[in-house]
């Protein structure tokens, strides 16, 4: 099934994670799940790239991680946005919108 799910543009994974976390802290599984749901099952984040990405974002100071208890009563690691992460989200979202609009313009008119 996942073979026909489109490849993510480079860097968009960060944006998706940032946007997903804007609503509140989530654990890794919930992040992947949420992205899949919101994209109407089109975007499937691979686990093999999710965790490295999360850690790179921790290192950049965009995210913060804390251990907590999940809805199923298991120990889970919850990620949330830092102030810097919020700023980053605003900036990247703007950039992304510009890029998408531009691409669509080309697609419609060219």
């Amino acid at each position, binding site marked *: 099934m996942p073979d026909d799910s489109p490849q993510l543009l480079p860097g968009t994974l960060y944006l998706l994670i940032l946007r997903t976390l804007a609503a509140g802290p989530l*654990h*890794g*599984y*919930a992040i*992947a799940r949420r992205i899949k749901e919101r994209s109407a099952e089109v975007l499937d984040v*691979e*686990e*093999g*790239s999710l*965790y*490295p990405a*999360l*850690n*790179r974002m*921790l*290192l*950049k*100071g965009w995210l913060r991680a804390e251990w907590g208890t*999940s809805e*199923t009563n*298991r*120990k*889970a*690691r919850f990620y949330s946005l830092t102030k810097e992460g919020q700023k980053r989200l605003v900036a990247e979202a703007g950039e992304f919108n510009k890029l998408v609009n531009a691409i669509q313009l080309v697609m419609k008119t060219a």
Partner: protein
Amino acid sequence: MAFLRELYLRLRWRAGRSRFQADLADEMQFHIESRADELESNGVPRSEALLRARREFGSRLKAAEDTSGAWQMQWLEDLAADLRYAGRAFRRNPGFALTAISCLALGIGANTTIFNITTGFLFSQPSCRDNASLIAIWEGGKMRSSFADFQFLRNAQVFAGMAGINPEREVNWRDGDRTSRFYAGTVTDDFFGTLGVPFLLGRGIAPGETNTAVLSNQVWRGTFAGDPAILGRKLILEGRVYTVAGVLPADHRSVVGFGISPDIYIPAAGDDDNVQFYARMPKGMTLPVARARLLSLFAQLDRIHPNEGRQRTDRQTRVTGVTGLDLLQQAMPGVVVAFFAMLLVVAGLVLLIACTNVASLLLARASSRSQELAIRLSLGASRRRIVRHLLAESLLLSVLGSVAGLAIDMACAKGIDSLALPVPLPIHLVVSPDWRLLWYALCIVFVSAALCGLLPALKAVRKDVSHALKQEERQTARSWNLRSVLVGGQLAVSIVLLTTGFLFVHNLLRATSMNPGFDVHHTIWAYMRLVPEKYSDAGQTKQMSLVRSALERLRALPGVEAAAITRRVPLNDYCAIGTELRTDVSPTPIHLQYECNSVGPDYFRTIGIPILRGREFSTADRTGSQPVAIVNETFARTVFGKTDPVGHTIAMDFANDKPKLIVGVAKDSRYFTLGERQRLAVYEPYFSLGEPINLHFLVRTAGSPAACVKSITDALGSLDATAAIEAKPMRRALGLALLPSQAGAVMLGAMGILGLMLAAIGLYGVLLFSVSRRTREIGLRVALGATPPDVLRIVGRQSLVLVGGGMLAGLALAFFVMQPLATFLVPGLSTVDPTAVFAVIGVLAATALLASLAPAVRALRVDPMTALRYE
């Protein structure tokens, strides 16, 4: 900022890595279980759900590795691994590691020590607050100017503060019934406050105080045995009572620089003191602005108090910083700077030798490890990785070498710290390691690591892998090219070092045995320093009678043949005058440079300079009588040619200088340095000029002078208990004159020997290695009937080519490199010194013989059977 935070996070991650990995495993486990829960709620059985969830997740190991990769600093991890590996390799081969490290330690120790001395002497940072805003003022280009000018500048309030010091005064200290002499610095009001000098104990001399003193650390520790209750102690200096207000710290460096540090500081007395001017610029002022302001002040001064001779607004008037090169250019003779530059170059050469040594050791190691490296290459290690690994080895070597080298340097610094230079100046070098030394050492580490490691590492990976894998490298004479070039080059450089060292040792021997033109074996120099206040009001008569009775007593002592007084002791003080001179034989004045001295009756007989024509001065030659002079041979020849100067007159172009009648011609002698070119000299009678408070008596003894020192000291001491007296045989007083050649001989001789030692180690190592690589070949030759002499010839030819080539190259190099050294040598000694050349060739040939002997013996001991079985 972001970079630092990242670094911090990475390091924190590194510290808690195992916990992090456990956490990550938990997190992934949670992910899989959550997915399984979801599948289960959709009706998939639990075991099936878990399996599917795991499959969907993919490789957990890979995910964990990628996640760790986000945190790691790959290069640091690699470096750490390489260093660990190198450390293990060194432990397995301690002989190699020890040799390499001690070579580097010697080279680096020599370098840092020379660097330390050089920076301590030439580039020391004064111990003051905010050195950058401090300036030195050179009124008319002079080092010191009058106290009155200083006060004028200070009252003008152009600067944020002004400080003046004369660091070369002397004071007598009366301690019970002993009197001794201190080097004193006289300082202006609030000198220490303006400069912001930190204190160990107490404080500086406060503004307005006239009777407080500050002690240097070395005097406090030495003379006063580090007395903790020193503050408030009363000292009788120059017949006046001073109270100790403070003690300077051990690492104090005076604002004057060049290691000059007086024993004691007292307030400047006033008008008769000339001081060096220092000023603190207010915020925002620059050097050109400061100079412009000063020039306008000096122009005012020139109008109010015209200076005789030079104008204060002279082009020479300069403003410089108190540190670094500008101070150096203004205040230091080029030859001293050149000497230190040469020392640095020489020390650099020693390090170069040490590095080539280590490089050839590493090369040898790399070629015996070629199989291991080939295996690693063929298993997929990148060449870059292997070069990095080999460089890590040399880096570890140089780090260890530098640590040992710095330890050597500390030991040397301690030695230098306690060294008293035989100069009539209060010079005390503070050579404590500082950040400059650390930077220097760090640079050396990296340069030497690159020098030692790069060549062997590149060579190691250039080899053909399949060839190296198949068989151990067959040793033939051709394949030790790079190593032998290294050793040859090393020999060449060490020849340069050694010839320089020998040249300076030869120079020292020459200088020591050089005839100064007077008798140093039967003469004593007694220095009597009077307290000025005691003699100032009585005028000249009191001093004259003191000198007269002193000479009477000295002459009456048993064993004393003659005694005289002189203004200057040759080779310890000098006074060169350049002026226009008129004679009664020619109407045109001539411009001359000559040495001057004022000497009492019997001077020439006492010091042993023959009078060739005419007579010595007598007691009749004094103020008011016919002005007379004695000239030396060279003066007579230069000014009068073949005419006998006795009976003629000379007149200098000074204001109201009367023509002097020449009454005698003295034989030439040395005046300031042993190595000087023959100078012109004019002697005048001692009592014809104003009396100084520094009395220099010369005494001629019948027997050994050492036996008379005490009776002379006592005889002079009984005349005036407040006078400081120091008597010593003239032979010992030659310290200053011999210092340059001694310093040169010691430093360069040491470097030469060090260089030779290192080169010998290198030569030995390479010969030994190459013979051991030829074990098989030699075994084969012996089995085929080669005799021991044949084998020796093989080994001998190898070292002969190496040593001979290196020597020829080195001698040619030395010939060119040493040309500029002529400045430092005594006359008659050329840079092409056959003695030095032969000595060097002899020493190196002996070393080479020794270095080849052991491998040759080893080669002979090879059992043909053992050697052949290797095939």
